[in-house]
């Protein structure tokens, strides 16, 4: 690469009023000897862009530093193609909109950003394309309604699908259904399960290959290149390749044998699953074969209960309303009672609830079931407290149905049997469901190219499963398409860089292989990591974890950041101008700083901000670098971690927190206050608080006094 840099300083957006732009030019020209350094009054204008284009061609530049607005603006304006590296120095957001104009500290701040970004741009390299013989076919695991829908929707979009089903028939749980809860307006009537039509479509679609009576023996590889081995008919093996995987293995009904407090041991107390099968087979009867004239449905049986399933399975109310209808269909004299805690029929299911409420033979009441007793004639009496029918009521019935919830099928069985160093299953995020726990990105999992759909993804009903199936299929197809182009997926969609390892210096400490949130790295017998590029999301956790610093990206490395730190001018302690380094996660913190700028919120001129892809990429050597050049304090600002994490790489900021806690000891040994290094959880909403956080930190730094290593 030519490595010819042009530095351009925009004097618009008050940068010209806030700073002496000619002096900033001198920093670039004299200190860095860049071949070209110009200023322009409005760099984003057509004229400004033409200047850049002209210089790129005439001066043979291949990299630009733009001292102008934040990189979150005008990305397309300043896009000159893949061969040109564009580095943005936010002189607007970090200087002219947030600092007093024409002051010495403001000028020093701007000059440092020119230094930092000119240093960085000269070290960045273009990405090397990642190539792979991408397999386009999808693997869908599970031939129930969800799996069949994922397969069919993918096939209709033109993709081949391998559909693997452990039984010898398609249909899964839906085969047990008598009828379906309403899926279409007016949402008042139950519907035929419609399974045969779906099965017929799946069986006859030319792009779907069925693998019946098969389970997954193993899956190895990476997106675009998964090697799958199937165990067929408990003995034979089959191999196939897939580009992405949709796990649609369904839910498991809760083990009702544990519901002794609800009388499960009695003859005429059964589960909602058994009741559905009974209705499907024709007659609703007691265990002794007599017709059941009255049925009590007990909601939340083993759900919303800390002793059983703490969550709600979301479909049990509508299912019981459906099943109450079965009771009524058997005869006008038949009665159904539904005892609920809350009637969860959200959205247009409300219309279904209203229709059932209008049925004179269905009694619905809120209440707490305090006992379920078998009578001598084998009828069952249910005691209900705090009901709408009275404080304490006892309802005697022929049959009691416990509306049970579900668990993910992956709870006790990894199913996918991933041949990944980090383990065979999908790390689950909450309640045993491998769900992303993001509001905005529901399909993310910690295994790239592998998605979940249906009841294994989240507790959901069959109607929603079909929609979820299409969503997961889309993400699987998208992964194949992006991987085929050598690009990474969410959140750094389109990034073409991936970590490169200088393995000759590897000490086999295994930190990278263990910490990678996505299980990207495999390991040989000695413990040397091997990267499966297509699995990588580009977070840089491995880069941060490596104690010998052998991991880097073409445009993001320990050295680039380290040199940025070292390029900053640190005044000696007599000038009484402390220096605070802020590492800012680009996902939430950098935008928060931009929002502060929009509102012209001011903060200390002593801070220097370095953006990171993720705090998980923090390498502790940067802390030593910062302290040894003389920074008085370092703030790490990134996304929330813990149970309700926000970190877009799921584990990044949490890992940073663990890593940074190890720094305390080192700092104490150096007689430095450990509180000079602090991590903060900053969300975009917190932008008004950030200035206060900086103010408090700066005040504490003042109390500690200057870094004793300054000027050494």
């Amino acid at each position: 690469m030519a490595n010819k840099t042009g530095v351009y300083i925009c004097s618009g957006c008050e940068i010209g009023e806030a700073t002496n732009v000619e002096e900033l030019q001198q920093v670039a020209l004299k200190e860095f000897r860049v071949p070209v350094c110009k200023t322009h009054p409005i760099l984003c204008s057509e004229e400004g862009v033409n200047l850049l284009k002209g210089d790129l061609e005439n001066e043979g530049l291949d990299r630009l530093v733009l001292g102008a607005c934040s990189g979150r603006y005008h990305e397309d304006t300043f896009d000159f193609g893949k061969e040109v590296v564009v580095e943005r120095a936010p002189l607007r957001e970090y200087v002219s909109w947030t600092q007093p104009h024409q002051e010495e500290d403001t000028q020093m701040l701007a000059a440092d950003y020119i230094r930092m970004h000119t240093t960085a741009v000269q070290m960045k390299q273009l990405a090397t394309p990642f190539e792979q013989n991408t397999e386009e076919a999808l693997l869908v695991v599970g031939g129930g309604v969800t799996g069949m829908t994922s397969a069919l929707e993918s096939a209709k979009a033109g993709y081949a699908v391998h559909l693997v089903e452990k039984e010898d028939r398609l249909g899964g749980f839906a085969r047990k259904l008598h009828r379906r809860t309403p899926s279409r307006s007016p949402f008042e009537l139950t519907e035929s399960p419609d399974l045969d039509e779906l099965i017929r479509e799946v069986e006859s679609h030319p792009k779907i290959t069925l693998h019946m009576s098969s389970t997954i023996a193993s899956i190895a590889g990476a997106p675009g290149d998964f090697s799958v081995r199937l165990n067929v008919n408990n003995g034979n093996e089959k191999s196939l390749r897939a580009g992405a995987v949709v796990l649609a293995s369904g839910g498991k009904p809760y083990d009702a044998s544990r519901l002794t407090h609800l009388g499960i041991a009695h003859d005429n107390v059964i589960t909602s699953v058994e009741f559905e099968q009974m209705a499907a087979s024709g007659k609703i009867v007691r265990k002794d074969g007599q017709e059941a004239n009255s049925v009590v449905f007990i909601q939340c049986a083993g759900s919303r209960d800390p002793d059983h399933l703490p969550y709600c399975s979301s479909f049990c109310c509508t299912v019981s309303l459906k099943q109450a209808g079965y009771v009524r269909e058997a005869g006008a004299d038949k009665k159904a009672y539904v005892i609920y805690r809350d009637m969860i029929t959200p959205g247009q299911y409300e219309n279904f609830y209203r229709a059932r409420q209008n049925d004179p033979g269905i009694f619905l009441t809120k209440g707490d079931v305090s006992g379920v007793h078998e009578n001598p004639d084998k009828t069952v009496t249910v005691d209900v407290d705090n009901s709408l029918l009275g404080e304490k009521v006892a309802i005697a019935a022929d049959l009691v149905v416990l509306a049970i919830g579900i668990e993910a099928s992956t709870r006790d069985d990894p199913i996918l049997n991933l041949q990944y160093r980090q383990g065979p299953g999908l790390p689950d995020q909450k309640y045993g469901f491998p769900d992303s726990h993001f509001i905005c990105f529901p399909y993310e999992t910690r295994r790239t190219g592998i998605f979940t759909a249906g009841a294994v993804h989240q507790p959901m009903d069959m109607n929603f499963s079909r929609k979820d199936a299409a969503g997961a299929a889309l993400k699987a197809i998208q992964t194949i398409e992006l991987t085929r182009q050598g690009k990474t997926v969410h959140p750094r969609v389109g990034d073409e860089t991936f970590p490169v390892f200088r393995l000759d210096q590897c000490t086999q400490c295994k930190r990278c292989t263990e910490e990678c949130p996505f299980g990207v790295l495999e390991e040989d017998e000695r413990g040397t990591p091997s990267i499966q590029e297509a699995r990588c999301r580009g977070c840089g956790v491995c880069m941060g974890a490596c104690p010998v610093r052998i991991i880097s990206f073409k445009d993001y490395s320990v050295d680039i950041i380290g040199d940025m730190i070292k390029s900053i001018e640190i005044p000696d302690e007599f000038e009484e101008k402390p220096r605070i380094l802020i590492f800012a996660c680009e996902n939430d913190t950098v935008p928060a700083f931009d929002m502060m700028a929009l509102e012209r919120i001011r903060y200390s001129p002593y801070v220097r901000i370095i953006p990171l892809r993720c705090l998980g990429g923090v390498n502790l050597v940067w802390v030593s670098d910062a302290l040894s050049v003389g920074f008085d304090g370092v703030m790490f600002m990134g996304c929330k971690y813990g149970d309700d994490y926000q970190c877009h790489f799921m584990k990044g900021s949490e890992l940073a927190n663990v890593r940074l806690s190890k720094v305390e000891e080192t700092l104490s040994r150096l007689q430095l206050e450990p509180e000079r290094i602090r991590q903060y959880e900053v969300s975009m909403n917190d932008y008004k608080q950030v200035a206060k956080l900086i103010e408090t930190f700066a005040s504490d730094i003042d109390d500690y006094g200057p870094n004793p290593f300054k000027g050494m």
Partner: protein
Amino acid sequence: MAENKGLILVVGGGISGITTALEAAETGYEVILIETRPSLGGRVAGFHQYFPKLCPPTCGVEINYQRLRRNRRVQVHTNTQVGEISGEAGNFTVKLVKSPAYVNNKCVMCDKCTPVCPAEVPSDHDYGMRNTKAIHLPHRMAYPPRFVVERAHCPSGCDKCVSACPYGAIDLNMESREFEVNPASIVMATGWRPYDATRLERMQFGALPNVISNVMMERLAATDGPTAGKINRPSDGKKVETVVFVQCAGSRDQDHLPYCSSICCLASLKQANYVRTANPDARVFIFYIDIRTPGKFEAFYSRTREDKNIEFIKGKVARVEPGQDGRVIVEAEDILRGGKVRVEVDLVVLATGMESNLKTQGINGDIVHLDEDGFASAHLQQPGIFAAGVAQGPVDVNSSIQEATGVALKAIQAAVGE
């Protein structure tokens, strides 16, 4: 992969429209995303936090905007509406009308214009709880990041903003333009409006300033809202010490919206948390019929129930009356304990439901079919027409995004001509 034959038109730039557009574009398809307002972001851009994580909507919207900026396959047109649709799957003809924003792409958001603008306009984004100038930034998550002029409110002949703008970004003579596109499939992601609470007799919305709706409460709590995030009484700015949430306000009601909007219980729990976080002494009363927190939302409900200052009372609110010193009296039935309850509080929040924009605004031509509740149910549509988000049914954000992702696949199928 089947040869990419067609274009996808997504109508509506809220969270669902943005999702469908992005997911299709990143899979390799060309998309046109239109939005009637000056900015993308829809309703969620005005929310303070999402349930159950109490996380900021800006976080996900920011990543989506980044994906939009980097993906050259999505053409975004704000201030744009559908004029007319004709044709069929694989080959629709859609006339689009782009209204002028009066600000062009030279705008850098320097904000030299608002100080000189003489005209004030009630802020749409803040549900009329404060005014902006006629020239203003739609909101902090504005996409495109530029100001816009409410031209109808400009005093005749005024062009002070034009003179103040150093970048030549304002053109008060900008005109509407019409253009035509030929998508293979169309996704209606037109979202919702809050049910008009003035139609709720005896709730005094519109009559008493301290009776607000749930969307207004979100703006009160938002850091960029009319009170910079302080939950104060609209009447006098006094800190709110007591609040009543009225669930199912105009929902599950044959006289108003017969269906349940599925998010109002969760939204009230979330907002009760806002009040309690802002004021550890505050007391909250939630009058409900059923508390609907399905699936994993249950944990949010149990956690909120642990707060002894939040009281849940099963019963419909019968009426709202003015009380002393700006307070509001709420009378409701107490079904479980029997009898009536009367409380006098600083603020009443009506948990109103969502009404589909398609129901109230409609689309030219008999192209999109609505069910009795005004939703574009999937099974009612002709091939090539799809709906995502609340346009197809009342759902929470997480579910909307799941559905919108699946709808992208359906739209792609029409684009490849299957």
